[in-house]
């Protein structure tokens, strides 16, 4: 078991190193750079001035020199300074993570509140009208693009109700009313999508469990249907659902971009989008590396839990 953990850990490190290399090179292929993106439209600099500005940012050094200096400090926790704001990348990231975690957690709660009841209902009454209606509703969440939904909501809320989610983030413990008002609608939009995926998972996993022998035994013993479902089936059915949620969490961290863009919530996703558009290399690299760490750690935890649950895997 220990060997297994050690091996998976090393694999994770390898992936992180590969990601750092790939993202470092990838951003430097994109045309344009941070110096150009910051210029006022009316500014008219000469190429020498631009070159000097790039030198100040350290962008004119050879590729390997730049990489080495970045990766050595990154390993020690210093992700460098943003090329645009000149503030430390770690500081920027930490600020945004607060909001994104709030949003992610709320989206998951919303998704669960929608998906679980519908999924259970759908599985228990398979192929009946309730099943169809439930699945239809759930899939509806997947079929409209979220940016479009967000625009429609913000536009018509403003027209009909004269209210939109307030701008300016306050964490839950500081100002719960404002926080909820801000994040509930974006969480709903993101959660609807997540709900569709989770509902499917719940349904198919519960269906599978319901076919198992021990369920038949419980029924044969004369237990009531509801007890059968709640006591025996649900517990086992939820394991894959939790896995899916876990996977989706890392997707959520990056996947909230478009909603953040429209509701002006400064999360990690919009930080990434802005950084890419402005060619802020250090910020992009820092954010991607951060995401990669989260994904690798999540995968590691998931694999470890599988290994713990299924002894066959441990000994391969």
């Amino acid at each position: 078991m220990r060997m297994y953990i050690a091996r998976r850990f090393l694999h994770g490190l390898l992936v992180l190193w590969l990601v750092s290399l790939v993202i470092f090179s990838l951003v430097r292929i994109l045309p344009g750079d941070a110096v150009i993106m910051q210029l006022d439209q009316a500014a008219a600099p000469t190429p020498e001035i631009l070159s000097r500005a790039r030198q100040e940012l350290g962008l004119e050094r050879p590729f390997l020199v730049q990489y080495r200096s970045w990766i050595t400090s990154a390993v020690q926790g210093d992700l460098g300074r943003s090329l645009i704001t000149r503030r430390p990348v770690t500081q920027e990231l930490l600020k945004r993570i607060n909001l994104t975690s709030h949003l992610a957690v709320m989206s998951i709660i919303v998704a669960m509140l929608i998906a679980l009841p519908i999924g259970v209902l759908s599985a228990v009454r398979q192929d009946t009208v309730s099943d169809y209606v439930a699945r239809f509703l759930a899939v509806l969440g997947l079929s409209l693009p979220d940016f479009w939904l967000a625009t429609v909501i913000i536009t018509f809320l403003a027209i009909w109700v004269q209210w939109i989610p307030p701008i300016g983030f306050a964490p839950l413990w500081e100002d719960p009313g404002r926080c909820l008002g801000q994040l509930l609608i974006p969480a709903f939009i993101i959660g609807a999508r997540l709900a569709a995926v989770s509902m499917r998972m719940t349904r198919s996993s519960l269906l599978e469990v319901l076919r198992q022998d021990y369920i038949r035994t419980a029924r044969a013993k004369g237990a009531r249907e509801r007890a059968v479902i709640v006591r025996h089936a649900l517990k086992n059915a939820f394991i894959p659902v939790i896995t899916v949620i876990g996977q989706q969490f890392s997707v959520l961290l990056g996947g909230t971009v478009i909603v953040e863009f429209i509701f002006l919530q400064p999360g990690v996703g919009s930080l990434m989008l802005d950084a890419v558009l402005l060619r802020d290399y250090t910020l992009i690299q820092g954010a991607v590396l951060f995401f990669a760490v989260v994904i690798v750690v999540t995968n590691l935890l998931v694999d470890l839990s599988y290994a713990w649950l299924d002894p066959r895997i441990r000994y391969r």
Partner: protein
Amino acid sequence: MSPGGLGALSALRHAWGVVWLLARRKPLGAVSAMIVLGLVVVAILAPVLAPRDPYEFNLNERGLPIRMQAPTAAFPLGTDPLGRDVLSRIVYGARVSLVVGLASVMIGTLLGTVVGLVSGYWEGKLDQVIQRGVDTTMAIPGIVLALAVMSVLGQSLTNIILVIALVIAPGASRVVRGTVLAIKQHTFIDAAQALGASPARIVARHVLPNVFAPILVLASVWLGNAIVIEAALSFLGLGTPPPTPTWGAMLSGEGRRNLETALHLAIFPGAAISIVVLAFNMLGDALRDLLDPRLRSR
């Protein structure tokens, strides 16, 4: 009749057989299948079905384009900001959506299947290397990948298909690898190997048929996702370049910009996307229910 036509005809017959099967067992799946078939028909017959040219600017008496006209008899779904007929654009848009969906999913799942097969069947060092590569690809955010491809290779329909395929492939490879590993547990693989069957034969005979079902289900869902991803790419300015009509570009461009003055520009492409994505998802559900013996109805 052309070979393409013959192939299409026989495929249609097969498709009809599948549809009939579905209709009896899974009405919802049958309806979705009909919708998908309808989409295919509309896409193929677009020049016949569209009342006008989707690229033409329709002008009024003063020679100016009839912009953002609400639906009327002459233009049943209205006109867009350049005076083009929305109905015709939606009909032709079915082509692009279908092509983007099919091509990207086909390429993505093919790529993913090959990688997953190789990785899962041979295991060992090769598997480890490939898996690390897949992990790395999945760790790079889609936006960065899309931007990199578009900036370097340029923005075109082909490159969009490539980008979406690259997004699908890692996930598909994971599924395939998992299935292959599960199948390898079964003893008949060992038996076949003991009998001296070549890896290719084993793969073709025993592995592929079992992989086919989960991939098919995955693919049907991804078909819907691909269309939505194309819309998201248009929103970010990385979508299919004009003047090609696509539902995604219509929804995220003029549809979103003119929500208040010209709602028709957003409703019709939005409805088209929703219906088609819904249909693909339902179809996937029905296929999964049919093909996975563990999930069959009592």
